[in-house]
């Protein structure tokens, strides 16, 4: 039934990308000057693509809803970026990074794409250092590394807890150089509201100037979507308030298949929800799991006493604590992948061992790391008989150097000192592995329409490993797309400028303005947030960390009904001919209300547990893996790519079978 062609090049895995690059068509520099490219989104994927394409000589237009490209949400990534440099000599290689990523994704990603990602990862670090990105260094002046979940080597490069910020500012600086040369035109505070197709090819977009409210037509020979993920369909997530699915969803409605929407990453270490007023959730970097130990009280009475404020965590002795990840997964301990750590936390809290007033929190404890580092430092300083206070002070300094900004952030939000008492954490929606379906060239099912970074689906399977999102965003933008899009554009050198005064642009613009009018004229009784919060609750309760057929079927109905209610009863104040933040939100929530339904439908279709998608019906019943998630390779070893057919529940499923020629499919064990 599938018509999907992933266009994976022939040849051995390790040679595919090189062979591919040797055979593609190139565009000569004089012709590049006649070709326009639109890039939507200016995070790591979009910013790096825009800069590189402009350097190559294309005319680039970038679009972002923020007031500056530097504010894209890549900036909030904390922990680091993976690369198979093997600087630590601990056995890393392209193959091992590839293998870890495919295994971490629970064997639901495409081998050739992931290998290419591993292959170019080293160049990313070289490139960023050349740009002046201040990565953390050791005393000898060389780059430092740390370890992340799901792997047994140290391959993560970092800049304190602000790696995303530093990498994004690197890409932003590369963009600035091209803006200064006139090769990039940056349209900030602009939101893309539709893709325009001419003769089946993506030839432009319709965008709204968020300050003036004007609807604008922009044409190009190709359009790149780098608009991020859709975690905000849950209302509460670690995404920025403005992060949205609109660009991707509008493309889906124009013919781009949407792949694996149900694959969502629920990140295990976030600051727990404190009340109904909460507008977003804050991540505490996974890097903390290098030194933090996760636990809940062993005895129910202690858990109850802690919740009631009668006991403090520091009152409990070692024997009274259950370091449940170390107990269940001795090989990986606190560094199991995110999906595994999140589910384990949920199980503990569901069983009544949660430690904050809502019962939805576990501890992340740095006491033993502080002692370990303190003793080490004392020895280094020649103090062979340090007092407890000296050990604590020295250890605290080490922890502060490594994670100072995260500890400060925690203290500001929770009003507790994490050097003295364990942090409280709980899983939260963080990243979406699903996204627009793309082939090896990162082209969607619409010709000339590309998707990169979190916006596409291709590299992380059913679960993304830590420090791999930054790697993928920059790999796509700096090193992959510039080649693949060139091959496509080599057929466009005689096309000439794409006019915008055509019926196609006119029709697309009219659809956009009609939709805005409809939102402005609904004149109902409820705010946009009212609907967004209800949608978020449905998603979290029925499509969250644990899913089953009954809940998913009812989620589809509930979301469908909520969407109808939204269009009849939403209220958007103000006017459309100027800045109107409620109108911006309304358009985004309207799209989330469609995506959420497809999400539930996809989750219902996939009756297996894979990575972040856990179906209660698919669990190991016996053996050493008893109680763990059960993948079903026989029936579900495919990518679900959904074709738009009106109502999301009527979407048609296309399957891309995943072929594993280099990796043997086994049960993903971290025990």
């Amino acid at each position, binding site marked *: 039934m599938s018509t999907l062609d992933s266009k994976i090049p022939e040849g051995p895995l390790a040679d595919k990308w090189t062979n591919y690059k040797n055979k593609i068509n190139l565009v000569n520099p004089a012709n590049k000057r006649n070709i326009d490219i639109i890039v939507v989104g200016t995070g790591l994927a979009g910013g790096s693509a825009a800069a590189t394409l402009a*350097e190559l000589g294309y005319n680039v237009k970038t679009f972002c809803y923020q*007031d*500056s490209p530097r*504010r894209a949400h890549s900036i909030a990534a904390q922990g680091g970026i993976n690369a198979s440099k093997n600087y630590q000599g601990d056995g890393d290689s392209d193959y091992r990074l590839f293998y870890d990523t495919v295994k971490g994704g629970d064997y639901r990603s495409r081998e050739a794409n992931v290998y290419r990602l591993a292959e170019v990862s080293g160049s990313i670090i070289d490139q960023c250092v050349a740009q002046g990105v*201040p990565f953390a260094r050791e005393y000898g002046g*060389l780059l430092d590394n740390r370890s992340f979940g799901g792997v047994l080597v140290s391959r993560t490069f970092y800049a304190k807890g602000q790696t995303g910020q530093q990498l994004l500012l690197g890409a932003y600086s590369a963009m600035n150089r091209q803006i200064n040369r006139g090769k990039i035109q940056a349209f900030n505070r602009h939101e893309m509201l539709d893709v325009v197709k001419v003769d089946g090819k993506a030839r432009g977009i319709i965008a709204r100037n968020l300050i003036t409210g004007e609807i604008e037509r922009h044409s190009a020979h190709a359009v790149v979507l780098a608009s991020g993920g859709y975690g905000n369909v849950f209302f509460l997530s670690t995404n920025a308030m403005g992060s949205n699915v609109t660009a991707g969803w509008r493309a889906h409605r124009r013919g781009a298949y949407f792949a694996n929407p149900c694959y969502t990453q629920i990140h295990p270490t976030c600051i727990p929800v404190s009340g109904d007023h909460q507008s977003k959730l804050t991540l505490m970097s996974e890097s903390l799991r290098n030194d933090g130990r996760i636990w809940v009280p062993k005895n129910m009475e202690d858990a109850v006493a802690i919740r009631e404020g009668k006991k403090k965590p520091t009152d409990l002795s070692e024997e009274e604590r259950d370091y449940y990840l170390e107990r269940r997964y001795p090989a990986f301990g606190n560094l199991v992948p995110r999906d595994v750590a999140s589910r384990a936390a949920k199980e503990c809290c569901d069983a009544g061992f949660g430690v904050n007033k809502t019962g939805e929190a576990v501890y992340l404890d740095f006491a033993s790391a502080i002692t370990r580092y303190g003793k080490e430092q004392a020895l280094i300083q020649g103090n062979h008989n340090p007092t407890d206070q000296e050990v604590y002070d020295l250890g605290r300094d080490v922890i502060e150097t490594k994670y100072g900004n995260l500890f*400060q*952030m925690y203290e500001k939000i929770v009003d507790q000192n994490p050097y003295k008492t364990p942090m409280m954490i709980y899983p939260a929606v963080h990243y979406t592995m699903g996204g627009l379906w793309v082939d090896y060239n990162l082209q969607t099912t619409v010709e000339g329409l590309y998707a990169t970074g979190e916006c596409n689906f291709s590299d992380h399977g059913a679960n993304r490993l830590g420090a791999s999102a930054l790697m993928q965003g920059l790999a796509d933008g700096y090193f992959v797309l510039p080649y693949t899009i060139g091959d496509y554009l080599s057929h466009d050198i005689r096309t000439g400028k794409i006019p915008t005064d055509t019926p196609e642009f006119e029709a697309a613009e009219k659809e956009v303005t009609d939709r805005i009018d409809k939102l402005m004229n609904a004149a109902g009784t409820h705010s946009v947030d009212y609907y967004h919060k209800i949608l978020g609750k449905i998603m979290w309760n029925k499509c969250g960390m644990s899913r089953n057929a009954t809940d998913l079927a009812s989620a589809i109905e509930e979301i469908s009904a909520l969407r109808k209610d939204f269009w009849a009863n939403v209220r958007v104040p103000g006017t459309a001919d*100027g800045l109107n933040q409620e109108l911006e939100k309304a358009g985004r929530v309207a799209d989330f209300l469609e995506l959420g339904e497809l999400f539930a439908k996809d989750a219902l279709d996939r009756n297996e547990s894979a990575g972040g998608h856990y179906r209660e019906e698919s669990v190991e019943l016996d053996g050493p893996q008893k109680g763990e998630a059960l993948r079903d390779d026989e029936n579900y070893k495919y990518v679900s790519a959904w074709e738009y057919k009106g109502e999301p529940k009527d979407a048609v499923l296309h399957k891309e079978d995943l072929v594993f020629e280099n990796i043997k499919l086994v049960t993903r064990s971290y025990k």
Partner: protein
Amino acid sequence: MKLSLKVWRQQNAQSKGKMVTYPIDGIDGDMSFLEMMDVLNEQLNDKGEEPVVFDHDCREGICGSCSLQINGQPHGPDRLVTTCQLHMRTFNDGDEIVIEPFRAKAFPVIKDLMVDRSAFDRIQQAGGYVSVNTSGNTIDANATPIDKADADEAFYSAACIGCGACVAACKNASAMLFTAAKVSQYALLPQGQVEASTRVLNMVEQMDKEGFGNCTNTGACEIECPKGISLENIARMNREYLAASAKG
């Protein structure tokens, strides 16, 4: 807690603004300042009035979008935080809170509390980069060891989030701290040396062109900076500028 908010309302760049007082109730100490603003906006929305416009995005203190002048201080009374990380426990029941946009000639108001900070982008475009193509065909990342102290120092300069609090805090609306942070980052790293002279000259020229004021070394910028960017950056930029000017 119950509060009285005095909020700057201005329809657009052309119109005249004014302060409007809004009473607000039911505010919890665990709310962030922006979550308190959400409550206000929900109230206005329910009454059919236009919500207050303000910039915000990541709400975890790193994107640099949020930008409120709260009781006369950029990002409010707490130190080393952005407005989104300022929590209501900093205030007391019955307080009056005055909320204005960041004020500077180079930051014109767009609407209510939202200002145009694109001048910052233009300063960066004038030279805030290393001119190296993104081909990936550079030398190995470990080929040039960098003194850890220099690398750490460069990182602290690079931690600027471009929020504009330094400008809003300065009586001259100077953008020296912002500009100096970027100049410093590159001045401290070998990768930045090749273009050091043109970079500092071009960025300072652009900064002046945008209408930011001069630095008179009062240090308010350093105190109000949510990321603790040090005044030393300005001293370093001045040295770089002098050296570059002397070179001609």
